[in-house]
């Protein structure tokens, strides 16, 4: 009785577009709330220092001001924001208080919280708060952090907050016996996701019911609820965390930030709704940064290009505090060095360093982007040393179908491993070579054409997805025969409502128009939800919905059997779930129930899915300006099963352009005092529509994941992971004759120009010495 899929796999136009295109989205600042007060955060202007005093007297007397809170107003113990995943005791020692007390540790750290009748009055009052800080020397980079003469936390003897080590086989032994080794130092700059909508929150306190509602949550609302309830000494069931429409997340938005507590606290204390909307400068200073890492990576190969081992060390610059998911990047750097390649022995040690910069968090492809850049650069360098073809060497080392599942390195201290689930990594690679016309373009490599040097590169990746532990969904069939979906994952703009409607419609065998609505994320949707991160939402939420659909059909059959007085096995659901039948007896569904029928479903996963693919680029570099133009960029991925080709394509293209921004344009630059010099969109350059016109993405569904009934794999991050390595290798290829080898991102015009100048300088020096 099951029908073939009518919707899964089709480019169904998005349901959410109907409101977004008409200006009817409901983002948090769009929520109407009578009587709401407005809050503004007073932030530290000093990167590192001891707070002498915070004078709020003048601010409190201004018209319309209801309160100015500092840490002393929060009770004997100022709440701290816990680590969400993969914590270690030493990481827990460096968590952030919701308001600074004693010391400030980064520019932008909240020191006071002003609440007034309007946002403008609150801003006026914030200006009237005087914060007197005795400055200390700021720790900016790895050298400063490791020197240890200036400590962020005096109770600790070090600025190293934690360590993750990836281990497989015996790297030391492999290196000792290897015929070829090369070690290089790499650096990825600090940059950030920069969603177009800044963060914002609206809290309401119902004193009568002792109930708190916080709107504006994203990504992990259920986790935010549990932290908030604990901080406010409320039972979890007295806190509702509501997900509104979200203007992009990419990993940063939705973790627990100080304001999540402050807005809720103020609403409860003042007995009025309180709204806070971050401005763009605040966003750059306070929402999580990402990526910054120094890495030393070493490769061991046979002379025929077979990779034997990888080892190295990395130092991530975590910023001033360990925020909830600071661990994903160092953890992935420790584990994922081998990427899609067959590398038997690996040892990678990653230190998490504290500095007086904005605390970091996750950004699409956390750690994977960084380590992919280092590894792919090193492979090209090894090819040059060994006289091997870059494509052939990669192909020789890519994992094949016969080697699946393939165990991943264990990550210490937690000892977790995992395995690559399915795929033949040569297939996407070969397709990518064909798409970019690699052989045809080979003659362009390093050539000077009309004043620009041309370069070509290809790189590979794997993308972990569908992270557990589980997800929950609830389906409700109403008396009209319409189905409403509730699910614990969050929507951040990916098109979840559409994809979930497709899955529900196919699982139930109903027209998609009979899916009345899809509600997601909020703690009011299901008992327990886990949210959207690690490319998990479509697979985990989708499989939970499919499971709920089976249970809903069971409930229908049971109700019909009771009504007809026949066994459940005799019941057939027919006509797109419009009616039930048992032999001659038939009944429209709405007459069967006469009320709602609901069912819940759960999908649990212990292992992650791994999508994989290859990207290739053709660039032209102008040696006079250092400008890199991306003439063509192609991505090929295998995601196991494509749920909606249109939304998947959108994920790939969007991620590629974010990766190009991170590889060529974006950088959060600090001065030696810890002042952020790029805290506006005028000084922080994001990709615009005329930067990268020629990008393409091809999605395949060759090797379904064996880990879930849909066969699907996470697909939101693959587009960004290999971009840094591909672009840097393409630039190195273009400028090979000049002797330029980039080891650091971004390859902005000034950096590329400087690399060219330096290379020319050392050539001249060498020529002089030779004479």
């Amino acid at each position, binding site marked *: 009785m099951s029908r073939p899929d009518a919707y899964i796999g089709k480019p169904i136009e*998005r349901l*959410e577009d*109907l409101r977004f295109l008409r*200006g009817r989205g409901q983002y948090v600042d769009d929520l109407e709330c009578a009587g709401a007060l407005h809050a503004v955060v007073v932030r530290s202007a000093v990167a590192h220092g001891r707070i002498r005093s915070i004078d709020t007297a003048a601010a409190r007397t201004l018209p319309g001001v209801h309160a100015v809170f500092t840490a002393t107003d929060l009770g004997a113990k100022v709440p701290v924001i816990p680590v969400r995943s993969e914590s270690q005791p030493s990481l827990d020692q460096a968590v952030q208080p919701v308001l600074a007390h004693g010391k400030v540790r980064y520019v932008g750290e909240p020191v006071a919280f002003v609440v007034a009748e309007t946002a403008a009055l609150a801003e006026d009052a914030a200006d009237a708060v005087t914060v007197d800080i005795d400055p200390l020397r700021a720790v900016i980079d790895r050298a400063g952090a490791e020197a240890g003469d200036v400590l962020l936390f005096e109770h600790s003897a070090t600025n190293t907050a934690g360590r993750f080590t990836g281990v497989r086989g015996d790297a030391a032994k492999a290196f000792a016996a290897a015929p070829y080794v090369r070690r290089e130092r790499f650096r990825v700059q600090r940059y950030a996701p920069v969603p177009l*909508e800044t963060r914002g929150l609206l809290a309401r306190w119902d004193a009568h019911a002792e109930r708190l509602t916080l709107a504006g949550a994203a990504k992990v609302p259920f986790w935010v609820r549990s932290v908030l309830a604990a901080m406010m000494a409320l039972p979890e069931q007295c806190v509702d965390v509501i997900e509104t429409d979200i*203007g992009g997340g990419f990993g940063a938005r939705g973790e627990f930030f100080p304001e999540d507590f402050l807005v809720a606290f103020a609403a409860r204390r003042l007995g009025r709704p309180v709204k806070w909307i971050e401005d763009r400068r605040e966003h750059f200073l306070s929402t999580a940064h990402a990526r910054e890492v120094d890495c030393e990576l070493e490769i061991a190969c046979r002379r025929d290009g077979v990779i034997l081992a990888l080892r190295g060390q990395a130092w991530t610059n975590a910023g001033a505090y360990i925020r909830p998911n600071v661990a994903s990047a160092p953890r992935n750097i420790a584990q994922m060095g081998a990427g899609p390649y067959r590398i038997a022995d690996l040892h990678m040690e990653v230190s998490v360093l504290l500095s007086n910069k904005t605390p970091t968090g996750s950004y699409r492809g956390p750690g994977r982007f960084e380590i992919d850049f280092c590894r792919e650069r090193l492979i090209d360098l090894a090819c040059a040393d060994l006289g091997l073809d870059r494509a052939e060497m990669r192909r020789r080392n890519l994992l094949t179908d016969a080697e699946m599942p393939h165990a991943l390195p264990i990550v210490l201290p937690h000892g977790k491993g995992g395995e690559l689930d399915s795929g033949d990594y040569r297939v996407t690679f070969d397709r990518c070579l064909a798409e970019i016309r690699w052989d045809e373009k080979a003659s362009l490599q390093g050539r000077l054409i009309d004043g620009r040097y041309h370069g070509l590169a290809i790189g590979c990746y794997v993308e972990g997805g569908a992270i557990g532990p589980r997800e929950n969904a609830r389906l409700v069939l109403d008396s009209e025969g319409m189905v409403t979906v509730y699910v614990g994952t969050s929507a951040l703009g990916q098109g979840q409502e559409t994809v979930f409607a497709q899955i529900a419609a196919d699982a139930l065998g109903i027209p998609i128009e009979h899916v009345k609505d899809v509600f997601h994320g909020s703690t009011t949707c299901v008992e327990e939800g886990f949210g959207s991160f690690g490319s998990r939402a479509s697979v985990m939420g989708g499989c939970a919905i499919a499971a709920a659909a089976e249970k809903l059909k069971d409930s229908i059959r049971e109700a019909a059997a009771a009504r007809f007085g026949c066994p459940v096995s005799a019941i057939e659901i027919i006509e797109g779930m419009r009616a039930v039948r048992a032999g001659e007896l038939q009944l429209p569904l709405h007459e069967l129930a006469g009320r709602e029928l609901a069912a819940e479903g759960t999908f649990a996963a212990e292992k992650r899915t791994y999508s994989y693919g290859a990207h290739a680029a053709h660039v032209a570099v102008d040696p006079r300006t250092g400008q890199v133009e991306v003439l063509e960029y192609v991505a090929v991925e295998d995601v196991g099963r494509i749920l909606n080709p249109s939304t998947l394509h*959108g994920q790939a293209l*969007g991620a590629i352009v974010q990766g190009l921004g991170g590889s060529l344009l974006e950088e959060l630059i600090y001065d030696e005092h810890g002042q952020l010099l790029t805290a506006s969109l005028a000084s922080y350059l994001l990709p*615009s529509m005329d930067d990268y016109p020629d990008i393409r993405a091809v999605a395949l569904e060759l090797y379904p994941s064996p880990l879930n009934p849909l066969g699907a794999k996470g697909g939101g991050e693959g587009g960004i992971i290999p971009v840094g390595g591909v672009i840097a290798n393409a630039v190195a290829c273009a400028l090979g004759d000049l002797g330029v080898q980039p080891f650091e991102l971004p390859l902005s015009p000034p950096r590329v120009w400087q690399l060219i100048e330096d290379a020319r300088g050392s050539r001249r020096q060498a020529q002089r010495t030779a004479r």
Partner: protein
Amino acid sequence: MRTTLHVNGKLVEVDVEPRLTLADCLRHELRLTGTHVGCEHGVCGACTIIVDGQAVRSCLVLAVQADGASIQTVEGLAGGDALGPLQTAFRRHHGLQCGFCTPGMLMTAHALLQAEPEASEARIREVLSGNLCRCTGYVGIVKALLDARSAYARPHTREAR
């Protein structure tokens, strides 16, 4: 200050502080929240609206400066509940994900295609380079504009075809 605006064909009068931006006036005084605010310094383009026929960043204009002006926002882009041709093209070509930049994109695009219904891809990319999108990589947006051009074609150009 009392200020008169013609918004989406309706005459409205508001009493605003001189420092209130036109974006905040539309959003919070008139409850037209389709116009979004992404940076408040004129770079991201999310707040773009059409003022007297020109695409304008409403975060860089004070409401009082717009006194007497004719304003079109995303809410006035199509009549009733139907999508207009530009909106339909955005949907067909997956020209949006989170939807936050979308109203500004639509209004900039509408102003461009009204003035230049035959704008080339290069021209479209040039003019819309002042509107940032973090989700789509812009590919679908460009396709949507190229597709929607025919709906803006002037009668004589239609005949020429």
